[in-house]
C-alpha cells in the first residue's frame, strides 16, 4: 500500500507545477497587465510607469518572473488586489469563514438527508416512497439551480409572509439582520433559503448514488446468506449491507471537499452571501485578477489534494485496493 500511495503522491508534483504554469500564463494573458489601470492616469507619467515596471519586476525575463511568482505563492503571498490594494490573502481570510459556514451546513444537511433517503429508497425499491424520491432526484439534477434560487425568493420572500412579524417568511440576502449581528437563530433564518438551494442538487446526486450502491449491495450473495441464516432484516441491512454501500460515498465526499473552500458562485451571488463564490464573481466583474488567480490556484491545488485524499481513504477502507 505504501508503494501505491507514494506513487500517487509523486504524480501530484508535476501536476501542481503545470497547474501553476497555466495560472501564470493566464495571468500574463490578462489584457493590459497589472499596470493597465495606471496608463490613463494623468498623475502618472512615463518615468513613473517605468519605475513601477522596475518595482514589480515586469521587465525580467519570463522564467525569472515565473520563479519569483511561485516563490511568493509558496509563502502564501498572492499579491495585492488591483482595486482595494488589500493583500489578497487578507481578503480571502475575510470571506472564507462565511463560505465555510454556509457550505459546511449545507454539506451536513445533505449527508443527514441523503443517506437515510437513499438507503430506504433502495430497500423499499418500487414503493411509492422510492418513486417520489427517484423522481425528485432526477428533477433536482436537471433543474438550473440559479433558477431554483430565484423561485425560492419569489415564493418564500415575496409571496409568503411570516405569521409573527408580517414581513417576508425568509430573508432573501445577507448573513444576519442589521440589529441581530451574531445571533445564532437569526443566522439560521438567513441560511435557510441558500441552504435549500444548495442542497437540492447535492442531495439529488448523493441520493441517486447511495440508492444504486445500496441496491447493488443488498443483491449480493453474502446478504442472502445472512438472511438465510435467519438474521433479522434490520440487522442484515444495518450491520452487513449498510457499511459496504456507504464506502463508495467516501470518495464522493473527499472529491467534494474543495467546494467547501470555493463556495457556491450562484447561491452566494443570488443571496448576497459574502463568501468566496461571491468574491470570485465580484472580482471578475471588476477584473481584479490577483484575487481571481489566487482563488483559481488555491482551488486547483485543493482539487489535486482531495483526489489524493480520496485514493488514500479508499485504499484504507477497501482491502482489495490495498493488496491489489
Amino acid at each position, binding site marked *: 500500500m505504501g508503494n501505491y500511495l507514494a506513487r500517487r503522491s509523486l*504524480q501530484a508534483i*508535476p*501536476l501542481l507545477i*503545470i*497547474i501553476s504554469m*497555466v495560472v501564470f500564463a*493566464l495571468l500574463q*494573458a*490578462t*489584457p493590459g497587465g497589472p499596470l493597465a489601470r495606471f496608463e490613463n492616469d494623468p498623475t502618472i507619467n512615463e518615468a513613473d510607469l517605468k519605475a513601477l515596471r522596475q518595482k514589480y519586476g515586469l521587465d525580467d525575463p519570463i522564467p525569472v518572473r515565473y520563479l519569483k511568482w511561485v516563490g511568493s505563492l509558496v509563502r502564501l503571498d498572492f499579491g495585492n488586489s488591483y482595486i482595494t490594494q488589500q493583500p489578497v490573502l487578507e481578503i480571502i481570510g475575510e470571506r472564507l469563514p462565511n463560505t465555510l459556514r454556509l457550505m459546511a451546513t449545507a454539506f451536513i444537511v445533505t449527508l443527514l438527508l441523503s443517506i437515510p433517503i437513499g438507503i430506504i429508497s433502495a430497500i423499499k*425499491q*418500487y414503493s411509492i416512497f*422510492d*418513486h417520489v424520491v*427517484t*423522481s425528485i*432526484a*432526477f*428533477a433536482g*439534477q*436537471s*433543474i*438550473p439551480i*440559479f*433558477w*431554483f434560487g*430565484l*423561485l425560492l*425568493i*419569489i415564493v418564500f*420572500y*415575496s409571496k409568503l409572509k411570516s405569521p409573527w412579524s408580517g414581513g417576508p417568511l425568509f430573508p432573501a440576502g445577507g448573513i444576519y439582520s442589521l440589529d441581530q449581528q451574531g445571533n445564532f437563530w437569526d443566522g439560521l433564518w438567513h441560511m435557510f433559503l441558500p441552504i435549500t438551494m444548495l442542497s437540492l442538487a447535492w442531495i439529488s446526486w448523493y441520493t*441517486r448514488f447511495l440508492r*444504486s450502491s445500496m*441496491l*447493488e449491495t443488498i*443483491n*449480493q450473495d453474502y446478504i442472502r446468506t445472512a438472511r438465510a441464516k435467519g438474521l433479522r432484516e434490520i440487522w442484515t441491512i444495518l450491520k452487513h449491507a449498510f457499511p459496504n454501500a456507504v464506502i*463508495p460515498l467516501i470518495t464522493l465526499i473527499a472529491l467534494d471537499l*474543495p467546494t467547501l473552500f*470555493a463556495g457556491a*458562485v*450562484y447561491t452566494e*451571488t*443570488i443571496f448576497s452571501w459574502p463568501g468566496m463564490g461571491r468574491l*470570485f*464573481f465580484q472580482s*471578475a*466583474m471588476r*477584473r481584479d485578477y490577483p484575487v*481571481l488567480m489566487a*482563488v*483559481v490556484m488555491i*482551488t*486547483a491545488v485543493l*482539487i*489535486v489534494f482531495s*483526489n489524493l485524499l480520496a485514493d488514500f481513504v479508499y485504499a484504507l477502507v477497501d482491502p*482489495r485496493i490495498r493488496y491489489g
Partner: protein
Amino acid sequence: MLWWTRAFDMGKNIKTLSSDDTNIKSVRSNSGSISAMTWRRFLRHRLALLGMCVLLIILLTSLLASYYRYDPESINLKEKLQSPSLNHPLGTDDLGRDMLARLLYGGRVSISVGLAVSALSLLLGTLIGALAGFYGGTIDNLLMRLTDIFLSFPSLFVLILIGAMIRDTPLAKYQGGLFTIIMVIALLSWMTTARLVRATFLSVREMEFVQAARTLGATNLRLILVHLLPNSLGPIIVQGALSTAYAILTESGLSFLGFGIQPPTPTWGNMLKDAQTYMTRYPWLAIFPGLMIFFVVISVNFVGDGLRDALDPRSIQSQSTNT
C-alpha cells in the same frame, strides 16, 4: 408504474427486474440488425421518447420563431412589464420586449450551444482518448496527465475568469460571444469522454479480432476507425447527451452571471439575469425562461438514460463485480 422507476435505475440491478429477461428475449427472437434492436430498446423507454418529443417541439418552434409577429430585440417602452395576455402570450419585459419572442430566439442560442459544445467536446475527447488507448505507453501517459490537468481546474471559475478577460474584446462582441462560449465550454469538458474512450480502447485493443486485422495488414488508422472506435460508440453517444445537458446549464448559468452570451442577444440565462430586478412583482419574467432550461435539460437527460439502456444491454444486467 414499473417502467417509471426503472427509468431512474441508472441501468443497474437486474434481479428485481424479472420482466426484463422476457423483454430482452422477445427482442432477440424477432431482431433484425443490431441498430434495429437498439432502436427498439430505445422506443421501449417511454420517458426517453417523451423527452425526444419535447426537444423536437422546442427545436421546431424556435426554428420557426421568425414567423412570430414580434422581434425579440425591438423595444417598446409603452408596453413594458405587461402580464401575459392575448397580445403578448407570455407578457413583456422591462423594456417592453415580447417574452415569447425572446424565449423562442433564446432557445436557438441554448440549443445551438448545447449541440455544438457536445459535438466539439466529443470530437476532442474521442481523439485524445483514442490516441491514448491505442498507442499506450508514453503517449498514453502524456495524454492522461493532460486530462488530469484539465480536471484539476475548477471549471466554473475558469469559465468566469475567461469570460471576464474577454468581455470587452471583439471575441465577446461577435454574435454576443456565441462562438467563444462554445469553444471555451467545449475545451473544458472533453475529459470524461477521453477517459471513457481510452478505457474501451484498452479493453478491446488486445482482442483476437484486432490482432487478426493487424495481421492482415490493416493500418493503424483503419484499426482505430473501423475496428476499435465502433466499440466506444455506445458510451460516446450517451456522453453526448450528458454533455449537451451540461453545456446548456453552463451557458445559461454564465449568461445569468453576465459572463456568457452578451445582450441584446436573448438567451434563457441572460433573461433570468434581467428578471432578477423585477421578479418579486412580475414573477413570470423569471418563471418562463427557467422553465425552458429545465424542460430542455430534463428531456436531454431522459434521452440520455434511454440511450444508455438501449445501447448497452449489458448495463441492465448485474454489475456487482464491477466496483
